């Protein structure tokens, strides 16, 4: 048994929010900063790390189409978890890094996971010039002077027998989530700083065991940092990022509650990037179909309704088995949806435990 499993379960005890994971333990942060309403993002500084917050991530998902006509999905994530709210240039820096990457096709799901720390340059994030990296995985800014550093990025990752290399170019602005980037995660007031870049056009190539596939498509980047724990009743979440055929976008999530009613929230993003925060519980999500994934009953098909926007869609997974068997396992994969709106997107689900026998 890997001794690191329990280690990282405690280090990254994400119970969750938005795209990615928040959660941050079950005790309040000691000496860590907490998000405050009204703070204004400063770029490019805020593209870099915020070591005084306990947890942070650079989280990218791409829905792709190959030159073979097949659908693909790609994930690239760098997590930062701080043991203490400080950073040094040497090995004793209490910042821990964790990377997840994956490629999903209709019949395969490739994934990899990496760990690292400060002190050697093996992993880290620099705001200027922008780069987030762990080992040979990297998300590097390629924007021209005058543009936002995240407007153009080069993305690469590698697993045991696969790798990808993608060029991304934003066709819209950065989008603050929640109230100008202050994203509330529960009715108890837990929150995070959260912004996205949902307007990426992607081109690049996937190296798969079966050969090289040239791909194009869309991608969504989430940046989020926080210090606060989830409320203890929340057991997991289902999170959607949707690219509508109209050019509009939507982020929506459900936080499942052990006993009471689930909490849902989200943001509707217009074609020009204007975000409109959804009212709590305005979004109604209900599972339609389940699949057996690693001994768990996982709802891989959903119905989403948002009456105010005339939204009533059904989502289906490209691959029901888009399982990330990482130290903290979860389901993450590309979806398609039909109904009142058509389009593609990404679905992430956490907190589905194996059936008890």
């Amino acid at each position: 048994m890997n001794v690191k499993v329990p280690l990282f379960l405690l280090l990254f005890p994400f119970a969750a929010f938005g795209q990615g994971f928040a959660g941050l333990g079950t005790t309040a942060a000691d000496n860590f900063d907490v998000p405050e309403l009204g703070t204004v993002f400063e770029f490019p500084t805020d593209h870099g790390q915020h070591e005084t917050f306990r947890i942070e991530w650079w989280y990218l998902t791409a829905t792709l189409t190959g030159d073979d006509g097949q659908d693909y999905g790609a994930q690239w994530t760098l997590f930062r978890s701080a043991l203490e709210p400080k950073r040094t240039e040497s090995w004793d820096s209490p910042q821990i890094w964790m990377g997840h990457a994956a490629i999903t096709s209709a019949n395969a799901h490739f994934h990899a996971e990496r760990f690292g720390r400060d002190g050697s340059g093996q992993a880290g994030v620099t705001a200027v010039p922008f780069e987030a990296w762990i080992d040979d995985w990297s998300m590097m800014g390629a924007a021209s002077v005058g543009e936002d550093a995240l407007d153009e990025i080069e993305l690469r990752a590698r697993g045991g027998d696969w790798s990808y290399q993608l060029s991304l170019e934003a066709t819209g602005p950065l989008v603050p989530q929640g109230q100008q980037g202050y994203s509330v995660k529960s009715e108890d007031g837990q929150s995070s700083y959260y912004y996205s870049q949902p307007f990426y056009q992607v081109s690049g190539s996937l190296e798969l065991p079966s050969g090289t596939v040239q791909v194009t498509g869309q991608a969504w980047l989430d940046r989020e940092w926080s210090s606060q724990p989830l409320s203890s009743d929340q057991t997991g979440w289902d999170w959607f990022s949707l690219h509508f055929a109209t050019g509009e976008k939507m982020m929506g999530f459900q936080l499942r509650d052990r006993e009471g009613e689930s909490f849902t929230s989200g943001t509707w993003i217009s074609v020009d990037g204007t975000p409109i925060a959804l009212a709590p519980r305005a979004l109604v999500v209900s599972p339609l179909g389940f699949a057996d994934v690693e001994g768990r009953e996982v709802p891989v098909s959903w119905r989403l309704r948002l009456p105010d926007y005339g939204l009533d869609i059904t989502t289906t997974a490209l691959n029901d088995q888009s399982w990330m068997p990482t130290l903290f396992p979860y389901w993450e994969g590309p979806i398609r949806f039909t109904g009142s709106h058509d389009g593609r997107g990404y679905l992430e689900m956490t907190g589905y435990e194996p059936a008890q026998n």
Partner: protein
Amino acid sequence: MILTTAQATLSHWKRRPGQLLTLVIGLALATALWSGVQAINAEARASYDSAAQSLGQSTLEILEPVSSETLPQSRFAELRRAGWLVSPVLEGRYRLGDRTIRIRGYDPLTAPVAMQPVNLTDPNDLLGFIGGTVGFVHPETYAGLELSETDLEIYAQAALPLGVLLVDIGTAQRLLDQRDAISHLVLWPDQPAGLESLRKLAPDLRRVRPNQTSDAARLTDSFHLNLTAFGLLAFAVGLFIVHGAIGLAFEQRRAMFRTLRALGVPLQSLVIVLASEVMVLAVLSAVVGVALGYIIAATLLPDVAATIRGLYGAEVTGNLQFRRSWWLSGLGIALAGAALASAQALWRVSKMPLLAPAQPRAWLRASSRGITIQLGVAMGLFLVAGLSVQYFSGLIAGFVMLGSLLLGAALILPGILSALLNMASRLSVRPLTQWFWADTHQQLPGLSLALMALMLALATNIGVGTMVSSFRLTFTGWLDQRLASEFYVTGRDQADADALLAFLEPRSDAVLPIWRVEGALNQHPGEVFAVADHPTYRDNWPMLRAVPDIWDLLANGEGVLINEQLWRRDDLSLGDTLTLPDGPNLQIIGVFSDYGNPKAQAIIGLSVFDRVYPNAARLGFAVRIDPEKVSQLRADIREEFDLPDTLMIDQASIKSFSLGVFERTFAVSGALNILTLGVAGFAMLTSLLTLASMRIPQLAPVWALGQTRARLAQFELLRAVLLAALTTVVAIPVGLVLAWSLLAVVNVEAFGWRLPMFLFPSQWLVLGGLTLLAAVLAALWPAQKLARTPPGDLLKVFANER
């Protein structure tokens, strides 16, 4: 019926508890020695294995620098960023209080699972670990640490190897004062596909496959094989006792067997009952033996551990565990031994004519055929011994040779004794003398096993004694030469060392650098030393082979000296070239003796060292000074530099330390030696007791012819002494051949050095005296019994009432 038969046969033991005790003690002793030795070996091997496994050394490949001691830490990130899954390790020796321990620093975030023995589940634990305030050691090592000497919080962790302080890579860099340095990179077993090759990315790094067997296990193999051989020998000797005791018990129950058979007990049932009886006793003895073995092992283990640490630098736990491997082997060998020892007796019972009385005379006739067969087997064994030394190499061949030699010598012993007795019998004229010789000859078959055991024990004693004494003599003389300098001092760091040199030069006759680097020499773990051109070396250094003007050549950088171990292992000759680690090829110009060092060693001139290893630490010095002034110098240095005593050592202390290691090494051999001799004496006693019970029919006629019982008893004593003396005489040459094989074959194979052999006749005299004393003691009881045999018993022989 079987139950009744068993009751009858077992009643014998009730009447003779002493005999039962002999049997149980004999088998238990034999088992104890064997299982004790096995327990020690098992514990030591387990220590080596756990050391290698818990840190992944037995399973993981590493990348190590080709041309330096360490590599810059930036190489780690470079390779990671090129996609290679590697993890950094920094190792080094660290002084904590008065102890030197091995520090191992690693990165828990990137290290493969196989090298993570510590559970850092709690984020606070991880924070303490990477924050540099926490370290882990094995509980046994923990117990010996002066925790006040460090600001680290040290915790005990049983999964760690002994003598290792496990810390974070950053902590190790701080403690060892090697900022930004790592010793090697560990490679994950599975690497991603499509990476640029390491040959291109890291031409300065060498990929090293994991050691399936750890260095410690390989280095100490010979040591453990030695112990095993001793254990086996002790067991073989112990079997003679068991054989004697079982033989006696069967002999004394002949009448009972006869009666039982006459009453209708089938032969098969009788044999089954007797065989089961032997096996039950064997299991009982084995349990006692394994328990005794545990005590022996537990007593010897600390000494063995100290020896292994001193000789090989490997850590062995001082705590003995009850491992299945050795107690099962103890039980197994006890049962097998009992079966072997009782086979002859059982066979005799099964062949016994229903109404046959004891027939010692017939035994003799049968045994002269036996002697011829034994001689043939002995010759075969000698041939095996000769061939194994001629055509095979390796320690196993050495032991095959030793085993064949000893067994052959033992088998040939009855033949030699028989020939000597025949000769004596022919030379004597008086009837009583003739009877004495003939009677002695007649007893030979019954005693021969005990005598063989005695011979083996004596030969081993002489052989091992000669080896140890030769070694001691050579080693002491060699130490005097090798440790010519009066005082040795090491700086904590380069600044210290430079200041020391300046401080020492005006205060001494000469300051000689002792600089070294570690590295492989012809693929063996080794080290390279640099020496100055100074009479200290020219006059004293113990050379085995040397070209003329060797010291001039060395000073000019035109050659290299190698130690005997390297020379013998690789069959090198003067004039061959040796590649220094990361360095040039140099001609071998001399071979020096280097006892007690398991590693290959090379010595080069200072000029070469400066050129090839510019970055090596230059911390140590040997100081030539009037021995009277050493303690003053030590005090001055302590005052000036605040150097701890552990970094300064004078000649006398090193010598006593080295000799201490030496003595401890052979203390184990000595203890086993004495036990073996004790066992052999016991074997003699049981054999004589067996014979005594059969003697009456032969002695009665002599008594009837007018010899007193006391006189007859004197003859018995005389006979025992005579046979023991003859055996001793035969044992001396056998022991010397054994010593020669140990010194010239086994030592060379095991350790890589050959020792000159010295003879110590006074030792033989003492041993001979002890043997005769043992023989007298062993014969005294049976002789006394004879002297007190009621005349009526003697008369019964003629009344045919026996």
